[in-house]
């Protein structure tokens, strides 16, 4: 049963991702990307990592996609078809990415040592919280603090960059 659901999700992810990068309308590409992100959260739920699935749904499918949709609407791209690239460039990019993908999959399939099996484990939110605030070896309190400062810096930076022109005009007046 899990296997069937995994394959349905895998085909959804790959098909919608392909549609998202090949469609000519930017707004449609955004919608396809939204469904890819929702399917990826399904993979997290299948792996019994429910917290990550919820974060994926709320941060990615909720937050980042709203940012994308607003950016598409604010830049007036909704009706315009995207500029097409030359077929030479598409061919070159296709050869590069398909060759690299084939090489990577070959390396994965032939690699020994990933056939170990464990009991399925459920990741609880309590464990994640303890890991994030733990000072012991293996704890993550320093990256946690660094991430919080980075988010603050990104927020201030985004406000300053997006408002830059208006501030300059006010200084001139």
């Amino acid at each position, binding site marked *: 049963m899990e296997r069937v659901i995994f394959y349905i999700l895998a085909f959804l992810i790959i098909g919608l991702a392909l549609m998202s990068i090949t469609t000519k309308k930017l707004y449609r590409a955004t919608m396809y990307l939204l469904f*890819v992100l929702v399917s990826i959260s399904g993979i997290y739920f299948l792996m019994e990592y429910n917290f990550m699935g919820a974060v994926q749904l709320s941060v990615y499918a909720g937050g980042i996609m709203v940012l994308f949709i607003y950016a598409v609407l604010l830049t007036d791209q909704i009706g315009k078809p995207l500029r097409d690239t030359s077929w030479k460039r598409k061919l070159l990019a296709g050869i590069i990415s*398909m060759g*690299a993908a084939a090489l990577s999959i070959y390396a994965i399939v032939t690699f020994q040592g990933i056939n170990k099996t464990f009991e399925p484990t459920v990741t609880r939110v309590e464990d*994640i919280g303890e890991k994030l605030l733990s000072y012991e070896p293996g704890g993550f309190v320093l990256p946690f603090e660094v991430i919080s400062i980075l988010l603050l810096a990104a927020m201030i930076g985004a406000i300053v960059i997006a408002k830059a022109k208006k501030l300059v005009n006010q200084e001139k007046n």
Partner: protein
Amino acid sequence: MIEGVSLIEILSLTTILFFIGVYGFLTRTNLIAMLMSLELMINAEAINFVAINKYLSPAIMQGQVFSLFIIALAAAETALALAIILHLFRLTDSIDVKDVEELKY
């Protein structure tokens, strides 16, 4: 881990997703569309972290915690990149890569 699904299948899925992102990044000329291809690649990596952690060493949870950091970084990066794109659109009236030639403020 998922019952009946091996690590090889999950890693193949994320590899295909990652290189779909690479193809999109190489062929798109719109800045927002390129950023969307980047999101595909970041998502593939986050699944990789969780899957390898779940299958090979479920006792230590480093990969699972790091995938959370990846999502936080991706959110910060997207917010900044979209702010830059909006500013560029005000300056040049276009978000195509061929119109974005100057780095001047």
